């Protein structure tokens, strides 16, 4: 089996999984759909490993393999092929995606038990994994766009999974509309690139970018900025980020998979894949770096005041992706992708642990109502702690090595990029604070009633299921969450998944220790061989200085959080009063939602209403349809008056006309 065959099989398994589960929708008994889905993704992971192994058997110069399944059309110069590109970057991505997806599927089998939409959930989830794998394995722009769009569709389907909740459906629509903006950017960028390069396949485009474009000229900058728009929409960066917190309406494993580990990293993958273009358009790359930096700061500040546990983690995702975007825009490709991998581990872990806590709280998600779960949920506490330490960048967890790698690169590039590096450290401080705010508020302090019940061995159960955001009453029927809640301590699939991720979060960083083994950098070398930033040696010493600073900042963040939330209890309330204006500003998420509503949503709705009431009713219905029918009716009414029903009138008409015809012939023949 060659590497490319393994690549096709990686794509085939989740596709078959989706179709099998969907076609047998009514037939699958119990939880078998879940096991089928998990098996499909596990097979996909196995094939990813095989692809990885086969790829390593090639020499480093020959590790970019393409394989075409068939040609759709080669006409008008557009070479549309169903083509995959198996090279170190895509193998790296499929390993991460399929690996984390397998664990999340396993977790979901338990989490979604007795939900009426269980089978539908797994067919959607498999479809999502297929789309994401298609996206990262794409060998040309067309397949990339297809995968991109499919991922957006899967995200919509899964966010509004509990479709009888209006909050969920609204969130789904919001996510999809914002993603569409990104899709438009991506497609137009493809047009521009095709116009200059005359091909849509990746490798030819990248190899000839120096010939086809003028460095930093308008076409390439425009194309890269539009690609950036696509990346920003998919990765939830400012200003296209407002959909991500609302996307937490979906089930927690969905948040773990799509909105933490995989889909939102598609933007990072895009920039990394298009690095040849971005390096040839430094303006666009700088814009990307600045946007990433702004996002990581904005998201970090907002996470300080959010009270819904899933939204805190969502904003932290946004912030970490800001790091990654900043990293790959600056040229720190291996660092950015390494952070992608470690982030997938610890963020999925955090979401899973949060799901366990929410289960213990019988569906309640607000931090205000949580506290003291340390003794009731020991395993979840340890997982949460591991994830939180990794996120905060505490040594020797994986997040520490990856995040500081990016910041070190920014510092290394020097000049104005130093500001980005300092901002990165500020973001790290905020990360530590908000992460441990979450941990201290949930697990420390006085146990809430649910925790006390759990310590006595009784899992809390809500009599009336409620929407966690609005509090309105719900049902547990189709379209709503199921009646049961699960915690990790009691369910072995959840334990296995979380345990595996915890171990990875702990030791996952060891493959890229600066100066020691640089595993990721070496592996990804063939993809980025043509980059001028890749072979820059960030020397081991400055890298270790950066790591030490990062560790100190992480500890400082934890200490500040400790002081506010544990040592002196009322400090949070005091700060809230002292800085009331700032608090309100952050509470409203920097007013982005209101801004977008004012600038875009309201004019669009107004236009729609105007068109409907004025144009459609008056012009189209009135003038066009009404006018046409009215004209026909008037015309036929005029003609109808000739049909009086009087026979003699008809006879008279006939005689007059016959006389007229005879007269005509008389005259014309004389």
């Amino acid at each position, binding site marked *: 089996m060659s590497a490319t065959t393994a690549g096709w099989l990686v794509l085939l398994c989740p596709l078959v999984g989706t179709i099998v589960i969907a076609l047998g929708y009514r037939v699958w008994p119990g939880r078998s759909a879940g096991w089928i889905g998990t098996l499909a993704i596990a097979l996909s992971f196995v094939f990813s490993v095989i692809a990885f192994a086969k790829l390593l058997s090639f020499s480093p110069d020959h590790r970019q393999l393409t394989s075409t399944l068939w040609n759709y059309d080669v006409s008008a110069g557009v070479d549309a092929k169903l083509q995959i590109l198996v090279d170190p970057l895509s193998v790296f991505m499929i390993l991460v995606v399929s690996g984390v997806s397998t664990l999340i599927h396993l977790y979901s089998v338990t989490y979604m038990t007795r939900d009426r939409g269980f089978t539908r959930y797994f067919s959607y989830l498999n479809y999502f994994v297929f789309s994401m794998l298609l996206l990262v394995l794409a060998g040309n722009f067309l397949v990339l766009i297809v995968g991109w769009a499919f991922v957006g569709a899967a995200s919509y389907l899964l966010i509004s999974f509990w479709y009888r909740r209006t909050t969920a459906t609204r969130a789904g629509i919001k996510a999809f509309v914002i993603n569409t903006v990104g899709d438009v950017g991506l497609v137009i960028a493809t047009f521009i690139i095709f116009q200059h390069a005359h091909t849509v396949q990746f490798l030819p485009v990248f190899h000839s970018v120096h010939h086809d474009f003028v460095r930093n000229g308008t076409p390439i900058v425009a194309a890269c900025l539009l690609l950036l728009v696509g990346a920003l929409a998919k990765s939830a960066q400012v200003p296209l980020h407002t959909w991500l917190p609302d996307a937490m309406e979906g089930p927690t494993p969905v948040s773990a998979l799509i909105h933490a580990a995989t889909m939102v990293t598609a933007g990072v993958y895009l920039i990394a894949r298009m690095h040849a273009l971005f390096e040839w358009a430094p303006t666009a790359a700088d814009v990307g770096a600045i946007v990433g930096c702004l996002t990581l700061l904005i998201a970090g500040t907002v996470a300080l005041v959010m009270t819904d546990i899933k939204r805190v983690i969502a904003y932290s995702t946004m912030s970490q992706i800001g790091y990654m975007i900043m990293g790959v825009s600056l040229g720190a490709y291996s660092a950015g992708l390494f952070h992608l991998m470690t982030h997938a581990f610890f963020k999925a872990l955090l979401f899973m642990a949060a799901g366990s806590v929410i289960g213990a709280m019988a569906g309640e998600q607000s931090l205000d109502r949580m506290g003291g779960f340390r003794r009731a949920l020991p395993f979840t506490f340890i997982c949460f702690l591991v994830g939180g330490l990794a996120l905060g960048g505490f040594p020797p967890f994986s997040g520490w090595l990856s995040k500081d790698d990016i910041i070190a690169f920014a510092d290394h590039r020097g000049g104005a990029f130093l500001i980005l590096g300092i901002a990165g450290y500020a973001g790290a401080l905020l990360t530590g604070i908000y992460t441990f705010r979450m941990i201290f508020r949930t697990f420390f302090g006085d146990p809430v009633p649910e925790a006390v019940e759990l310590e006595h061995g009784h899992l809390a159960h809500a009599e009336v299921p409620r929407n966690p955001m609005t509090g309105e009453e719900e049902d547990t029927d189709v379209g709503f969450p199921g009646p049961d809640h699960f915690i990790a301590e009691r369910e072995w699939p959840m334990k296995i998944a979380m345990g595996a991720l915890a171990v990875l979060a702990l030791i996952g960083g060891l493959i890229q220790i600066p100066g020691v083994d640089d595993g990721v950098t070496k592996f990804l070398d063939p993809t980025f061989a043509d980059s001028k930033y890749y072979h820059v040696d960030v020397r081991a010493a400055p890298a270790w200085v950066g790591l030490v600073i990062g560790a100190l900042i992480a500890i400082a963040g934890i200490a500040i959080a400790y002081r506010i939330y544990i040592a002196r209890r009322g400090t949070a309330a005091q700060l809230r009063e002292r800085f009331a204006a700032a608090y309100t500003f952050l509470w409203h998420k920097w007013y982005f939602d209101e801004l977008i509503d004012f600038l875009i949503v309201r004019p669009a709705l107004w236009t729609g209403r105007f068109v409907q009431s004025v144009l459609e009713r008056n012009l189209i*219905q009135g003038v066009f349809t009404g006018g046409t029918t009215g004209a026909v009716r008037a015309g036929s009414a005029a003609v109808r008056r000739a049909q009086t029903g009087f026979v003699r009138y008809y006879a008279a008409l006939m005689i007059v006309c016959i006389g007229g015809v005879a007269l005509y012939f008389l005259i014309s023949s004389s």
Partner: protein
Amino acid sequence: MSAVLFFIAAIGALTGAIGVVILRDPFYCVLALAVHLVSLAALFLLLRAEFVAAAQVIVYAGAVMVLYVFVVAYVGGGESLTSGAVLRVLGPLFALALAIELCIAMLGAGLKGVSSKGAPYVLGFGTPAHLGRLFLTQYLLPFEIASILLLVAAVGAVVLARRRRGLEAEGERIDAFLLAARRPAYTGTMAEGAGIRPATQNVDYAIEAERVGSGAGDGTGSGSNQEGGW
């Protein structure tokens, strides 16, 4: 000699024709037509069309007119039956115009034979022998079609005029017929089916039709005019 006969026959024909148009009682009209037909037969004889003349008398005056007499006797009808003012004046005018035109057409056309007495006489012209030969050789198809036509007419007449047995009496049939012609407004419309404007009894159809006809293109808009949120 033939000129005298011609004028007698012509005047007879024209008198009969005018009699048909002017006489009030339809029975007298039928009789006038019979006179006309016989005169026409005389004119045919003057034109040496013996068989056609015979056929005219036997078939036309002898069978068709008899049929007419029967029907007129059955139906009757003799009230003042002349038209309204307009056509009473215009009708004869149109006819006069038509007559003048036809005369001009036929006489002023420059046909050589119009002023002659006809082609040289061939022995047997107009006899049944000649006509029969033509019917069965050159004009066979029209002959056959004519017989089919007669068959169809006979069957049609029987069907039209028969009395329907076994159904309700004639009096009720006419009432049902008249009622069906005047339905209540909106019967069978979608509005009725949707319950928006139920079919009302005793509504004058003509007035309702006028009212509805004036508001064109109105029906579809009202139902879908909901203020929808996004």
